[in-house]
């Protein structure tokens, strides 16, 4: 992640911002500004990794002592300061952040902080240590930075999307109409095929999911064993939804594809075509200057016109980057204007003939004139149709 052009971009943004310094606490934001793959942050909610980046100076990464060598080796940030765990972690982290801020900034400094990530307690403790400083919300500022990808980030996201699609295809090529592979087995095959393409599949979020027939009626079947799958064999005539999230150097794919077990029925074909028509509508609107909410409205309107039941509760897509699900959101409330360089996962969702959840997520890049689909291993205007083999 160190060579993605993010460092220079953040540096420039801080220089031209109203902040005298920025403090970043959210694991997603930290991974972005530190340009480091740190999947373990999500498994340690009681530990704190904080980046303090003062204007005109080098940033410092503050972490528990046990992560120090890891952060040093994975992040480009040279100044890594570990806090002793000989006191409660929040207090230790806050004391060290406050120490660095005090030694760097004027007492009346304006500090930007990701207030939609930092816990109230952490903030209160820090505020108490830096009483005269002015804290400001910098979430929108950070989101702006994260939403528009550098050329190197785009390249990486293209690669991870492609390899994930390849991984899915590699696995489903093994699938036959006959009962030879359970949902559980196929989910694992997808992971293995992604690993073979050198993707990272560790971490709680790197989930594969296979749901066939009635199981495909649920977003998260087999709770709480999400992503582990059932012993059920996909049956001839069923629709199967396969999903995979994987990462490469800290950047994520978010993929979902539909398979038809044998030749799809007329209703299944019609449902898939309906999905494709909504996808086409979205693609026509995905261009610079259009608001995310307008893309959503266009898709919704098209669905209504055609009598398609759109599951619009989740919007029709979202950004992707150091997480699988981030701004901008292609939903009713997000008025973010699309800008060249944004990378989104397009994800309109509808019901199939047996009320299966049908989705086929495409990763798209907003270009100067429209959008470009990234990472297709096969042409997904048709579902994958499994052959009758033995």
């Amino acid at each position: 992640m160190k060579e993605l052009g993010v460092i220079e971009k953040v540096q420039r943004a801080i220089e031209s911002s109203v902040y005298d310094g920025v403090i970043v606490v959210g694991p997603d934001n930290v991974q972005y500004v530190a340009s480091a793959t740190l999947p373990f942050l999500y498994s340690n909610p009681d530990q704190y990794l904080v980046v303090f980046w003062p204007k005109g100076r080098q940033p410092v990464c503050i972490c528990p002592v046990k992560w120090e060598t890891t952060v040093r080796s994975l992040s480009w940030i040279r100044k890594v300061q570990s806090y002793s765990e000989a006191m409660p972690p929040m207090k230790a982290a806050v004391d060290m952040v406050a120490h660095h801020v005090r030694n760097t900034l004027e007492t009346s400094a304006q500090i930007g902080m990701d207030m939609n990530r930092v816990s109230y307690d952490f903030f209160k403790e820090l505020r108490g240590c830096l009483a005269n400083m002015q804290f400001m919300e910098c979430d929108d500022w950070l989101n702006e930075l994260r939403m528009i990808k550098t050329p190197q980030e785009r390249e990486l996201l293209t690669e991870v999307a492609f390899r994930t699609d390849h991984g899915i295809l590699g696995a489903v090529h093994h699938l036959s109409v006959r009962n030879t592979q359970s949902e559980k087995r196929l989910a694992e095959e997808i992971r293995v095929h992604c690993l073979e393409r050198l993707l990272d599949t560790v971490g709680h979020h790197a989930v594969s999911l296979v749901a066939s027939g009635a199981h495909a009626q649920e977003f998260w079947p087999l709770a709480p064993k999400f992503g582990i799958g059932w012993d059920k064999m996909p049956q001839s005539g069923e629709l199967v939804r396969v999903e995979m999230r994987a990462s490469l150097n800290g950047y994520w794919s978010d993929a979902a594809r539909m398979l038809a077990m044998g030749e799809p029925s007329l209703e299944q074909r019609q449902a898939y075509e309906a999905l494709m028509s909504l996808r086409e509508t979205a693609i026509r609107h995905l261009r610079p200057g259009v608001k995310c909410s307008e893309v959503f409205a266009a898709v919704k309107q098209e669905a209504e016109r055609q009598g398609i039941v759109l599951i619009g509760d989740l919007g029709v897509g979202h950004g992707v980057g150091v997480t699988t699900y981030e701004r901008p959101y292609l939903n009713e409330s997000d008025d973010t204007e699309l800008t060249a360089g944004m990378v989104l996962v397009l994800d309109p969702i509808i019901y199939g003939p047996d009320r299966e959840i049908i989705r086929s997520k495409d990763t798209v890049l907003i270009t100067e004139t429209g959008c470009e689909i990234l990472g297709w291993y096969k042409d997904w205007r048709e579902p994958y149709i499994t052959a009758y083999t033995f």
Partner: protein
Amino acid sequence: MIDEVKTKIRHTIEKQDCDAVISTGVDNVTYLSGCVLPFADNYPDRKAVLVLTKEGKALVICPFDWAQAIRDQGWEENIEIYDENAGMPPQAIVKSLAAVLSSLGVARGKVGLDTSWASKLLMDRLAVSLPGVEWVSCDQMLRDMRIVKTRAEVELLEAAAKQSDKGIIGALNHLEGTVEIPGYTIAEFSERVRVHIVEFGGSGIGHLATLQGLDTRQYYVPQRGTFRQGNLVRIDVTNHNLGYWSNAGRMAVIGQPTVRQAKAYKDNLVLKAAAQKVLKPGLHCDQVFHKVEKTAEETGIRFWHEVGIGHGVGVSHQEAPYLHRWDTTLLEPGMVLVLDICTYGPLGELIHSKDTYEIVEGGSKLISWYKKWDRLYAVTGFRAAH
């Protein structure tokens, strides 16, 4: 949801000086609802919030696609789906929560919230939307409830710990005989740990890292490369069993261990045995830490004292109490702790062999061994495939 936990929660909430308690933390929501949320930590802009009133009403507010998963796990109370189209995070959930609290008649009451989880922005927005509410922190109450486990919780934790151990052993067994070229990649080995845990009933994997040689001086490195003869290997994994976590770490060596490697491993066990002797009701967490510190001084075994020697485990991978010099929590029967003493190998490798213990009357019970870990696991063999 576990009945004993449900009863415990109800009695605790009744005694609180609050009209309602709200939790926003992923682990707290799991604890209070008995439901695991689908990878919620990884969706920082999406939230599930649990509301419990003093009168015994309970309700979960969550995004559309999580509702079915919560229902499928046996949640019989209300679920309110918040409309993510109704505002940018966290506005949509604030709107929904404000409406819920008003309908429950606590929009002018005293409400407890887990402020160690709730974001500053969420709190600010709630204060604006619900000006009549007096917000107080309920973290201490939640901590105290969670710290002593019920019998059913201990059973889930024991099963989780054994799933981890079996998963690691299963993968190590397969590794034997495959360490020559082409051999396994580290990534494939880690994946095999995951698969074996699932095979033994695990519900989901969290942290997963296999490190070898000099990499073991670090906490985590991306899973790259293949195993090499002579290297010490550390395998760290957390997995949950219906929402209750294990936190495991084991050591192996590729080939037969050198004398120094074997001794380094034994040294680790010496300190662990010292800790285990004093891991019993009536002692404080810091006393266990000091016992290890003293034993280390007496024996000349170096350990990484700065990171502590263990922690609680439950609906979170690691939680209170902490076996550290700063935690004076009194150990009580029903607590479940992971002993995690880090010592050093001949090349500065970080060595640990994490074990999970239940505090019982008079002492502690080891609940994480599938096999005996009293010697370093040697990965040997000569076959080209296994």
